């Protein structure tokens, strides 16, 4: 059995003393063929693991897109007009009556748009699982998207809770008593935004596991 060692050309980083000098070895097929296949198999297994993580990442992103855009759409289309009226009371409820809901629609649209734009990066990671730069970029932007998503969901949840229960200490009446449909739509939108937040948490943790195998 013979071994050849190929020394790669010196890169500038090596010449400057900032990186190690690397060579690759090749074994000819012989009685020690097991070692070659075992080493190659281990390398392929690691790449396969990372590719599996990347595919799961892509599918989670698709799910998160559906949830985020559904939340924005449901909240944006929540409007209810009661069939009776008097001179003094408001009988129309819409999402833009409450600035918190306006913030919710805008923030969930931004999160949904970001997730759509991050799909190409996710595809790049499926094709080339050992790329580090797209992965780090996706981790950073996913964390920001998670924060925005959770902030929108938490704020809207607080207002929805008030709308359902009111608050006797502050004399705030529960508006859900009158606007049932509006309340249902708005609560559904908040639930969808929390689903999208959970998906983003899993995305960040998955990226961490993929980086660990680096």
């Amino acid at each position, binding site marked *: 059995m013979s071994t050849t*060692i190929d*020394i790669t050309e010196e890169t500038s980083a090596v010449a400057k*003393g*900032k*990186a*190690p*000098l*690397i*060579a*690759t*070895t*090749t*074994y000819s097929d012989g009685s020690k063929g097991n*070692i*070659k296949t*075992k*080493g*190659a198999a281990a*390398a392929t297994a690691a790449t396969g693991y990372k590719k599996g993580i990347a595919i799961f990442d892509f599918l989670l992103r698709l799910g998160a897109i559906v949830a985020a855009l559904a939340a924005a759409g449901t909240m944006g289309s929540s409007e209810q007009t009661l069939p009776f009226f008097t001179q003094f009371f*408001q009988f129309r*409820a819409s999402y833009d*009556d*409450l600035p*918190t809901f306006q913030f919710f629609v805008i923030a969930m649209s931004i999160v949904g748009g970001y997730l759509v734009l991050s799909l190409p990066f996710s595809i790049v990671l499926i094709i080339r699982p050992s790329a*580090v730069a797209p*992965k*780090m970029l996706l*981790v*950073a932007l996913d*964390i*920001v998207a*998670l*924060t925005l998503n*959770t*902030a929108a*969901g*938490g*704020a*809207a*949840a*607080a*207002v929805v*809770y*008030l*709308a359902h229960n009111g*608050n006797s*200490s*502050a004399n*705030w*009446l529960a*508006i859900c008593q009158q606007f049932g449909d509006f309340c249902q739509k708005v609560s559904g939108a908040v639930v969808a935004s929390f689903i999208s*937040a959970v998906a983003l*948490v899993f995305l*960040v*943790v998955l990226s*961490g*596991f993929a*980086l*660990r195998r*680096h």
Partner: protein
Amino acid sequence: MKADAPVVLGEPKGYTAQKAGVKRGIAILDFILRLVGFIGTLSSAIMMATTNETLPFFTQFIRFRAEYNDLPTFTFFVVANAAVSAYFLLSLPLSIFNILRSSAKNSRIILIIFDTGMLALLTAGSSAGAAIVYLAHRGNTKANWLAICQQFNSFCERISGSLIGSYVGVTVFIVLILLSASALARR
């Protein structure tokens, strides 16, 4: 040594030590940020929990005392901030372990997992608190919700101020997760 893996023939002087040094710097920054986050969230929880204002006059029908647990959202805010500050305290030993052992991978992934979960909890708590503080300042004419800040000035100031500490905690978490991920990405 695996076959067909690249073979390192030689390294410049101090290369391994330099890599370990960068990771150690990241771990020290991680530790300092955890201390900052602990102080921020703890002070925020204490500030919100000690709100208590009683107006000097009274009538038979209207309430003139404001406390944080009159609003359930603020109770959630205090609980979330207290839980996160306890988490910061408990994660300090893991952070010290990362400083001592620069090549630790499992402890870093554990920290990423828990940091992400706590980030979601803290952001939810602080944004819910912010929504109610906004309502307390401005009220809402369409829903007939009056702005209670008109009467309860010092209560309002205190609840607004306590939001700052929890947002400091949110920023700390974002930076911490990024640091842990970049430390993992360096071989």
